[in-house]
């Protein structure tokens, strides 16, 4: 086999140009100045980052982190026991397929489908009124509650799938071995199951936490004026205000957050292996 792996070089080239160089461009742009005519211009400056430390941005940033955190915890609390039951279920194949379908199909459409449930005269209010849990319909749509439910609804499969693949590899005979050695139920969970599935939990959290801030159409469709997240900010910085350097700087902050998360993930992963 003396031939050069031509197609390998092609895919490398493509990935470098379209997958790596663009991120460098974002980094460079974030240090340039804004120009109304050419979008970006010299000189290099730190202003884009300094401007991000204003109360307005701080508020959006804090709100994004908070909403993403609630979403991540919400997904985790449901997905962890759920994946456990899935691993132990007899009908695993079909149940798994039912999780994979929302994973691959349009999340915009699924977000849209929530409107009919959440709106003022929607099904949820109707249901709660019929059961006499509430006397007056609640205004659920266009609130942070709607945004968080939309995010959990959309990102749930992203939490389940990594945790599930991780649990699938767990050797359940370890439980019996531990029981024989006198471990209690809490020990089984905290000393054996949780550490062994930590990797899945962390990858699930990485896959949920960041996208939660960036799925700009969910706050746009379900949220009100007070549910603007970082994603909406970047979107408007690029396409509405057309301040690209500012938008690039905001994207860089997001990417930095991602790198921190990946770093934690990597360290946890190595701990798990040793």
């Amino acid at each position, binding site marked *: 086999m003396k031939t050069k792996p031509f197609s390998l070089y092609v895919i490398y080239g493509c*990935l470098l140009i379209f997958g790596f160089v663009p991120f460098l461009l974002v980094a460079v742009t974030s240090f340039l100045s804004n120009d109304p005519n050419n979008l970006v211009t010299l000189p290099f400056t730190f202003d884009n980052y300094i401007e991000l430390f204003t109360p307005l941005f701080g508020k959006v940033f804090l709100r994004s982190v908070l909403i993403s955190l609630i979403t991540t915890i919400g997904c985790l609390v449901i997905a962890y026991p759920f994946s456990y039951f899935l691993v132990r279920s007899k009908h695993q194949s079909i149940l798994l*397929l039912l*999780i994979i379908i929302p994973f691959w199909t349009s999340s915009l459409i699924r977000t849209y489908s929530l409107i009919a449930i959440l709106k003022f005269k929607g099904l949820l209010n109707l249901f709660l009124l019929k059961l006499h849990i509430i006397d007056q319909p609640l205004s659920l749509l266009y609130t942070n509650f709607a945004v968080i439910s939309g995010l959990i609804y959309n990102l749930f499969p992203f939490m389940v799938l990594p945790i599930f693949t991780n649990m699938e590899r767990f050797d359940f005979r370890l439980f019996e071995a531990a029981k024989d050695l006198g471990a209690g139920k809490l020990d089984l969970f905290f000393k054996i199951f949780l550490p062994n599935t930590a990797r899945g939990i962390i990858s699930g959290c990485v896959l949920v936490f960041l996208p939660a801030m960036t799925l700009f*159409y969910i706050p746009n469709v379900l949220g009100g004026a007070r549910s603007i997240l970082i994603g909406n900010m970047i979107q408007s910085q690029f396409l509405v205000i057309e301040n690209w350097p500012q938008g690039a700087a905001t994207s860089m902050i997001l990417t930095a957050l991602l790198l921190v998360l990946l770093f934690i993930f990597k360290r946890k992963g190595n701990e798990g292996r040793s």
Partner: protein
Amino acid sequence: MKTLLQKLFLISVYLFLYIPIIVLIVYSVNKARFSLQWQGFSTQWYAELLHDRELWSAFTHSVLLGICAAVISTATGLFACVQLFLRPKRKHQRRSLFAILLLLIVIPDLVLGVALLLLFNIFAILLGFFSLLIAHITFCIPFVVLTINSRIHTLDPNLYYSALDLGATRTRALTSVLLPLLWPAVVSALLLCFTLSFDDVIISYFVAGPDFNILPLTIYSLVRVGVTPELNALCTFTFLLSMILVIVAYKLSRKSP
């Protein structure tokens, strides 16, 4: 009692996931335009979709884009996987390739969209079909490589080399030995790429031009206006199409070689 609780929990999660979709489908065949009340079965909203020219053009654009993106990214991904498979010693290449692919998977779509917008701007690539195609190929390739790679690892590279020893040309060994063994993974990758491309909103939002309208962006602009029965029909149709493709892809990927 314990198993009953487990079952209840599982069922309520699935209800949470599927009730909104079922409601959407039901309303798309409801005669009533404004009320939530059921006023009889009707396919009039679907009929109206058929007469909407703009929607049709967006739909054909999306299908064209999806097919091109799926074919190109699957072909590239397939050849890369085959090359890596036949040369198991190229560990560094494999590692760096997978590092970039992982980066593309974990990076939020929004940042990728922004990054590609900057790239197209610098290279003066007009926003339209071509920019969308490049973007879609970029976010599809990681999924192709993951799908095909997990399959190819169940094979033995010696199958290929013995075909060469028996006098087959390289192309022949590839098309008659490796490809038939890989085809479920290849078809599954094709279908998944198509649905990814067909449903993508965020990245397309940044790199689409005014002359080339695609379906997800059209849906997005309609969704922001509010709920209409026509939109219910359109979303139902799009969702069912993606769902069928995903189910087929799933069945294929689970088939043992």
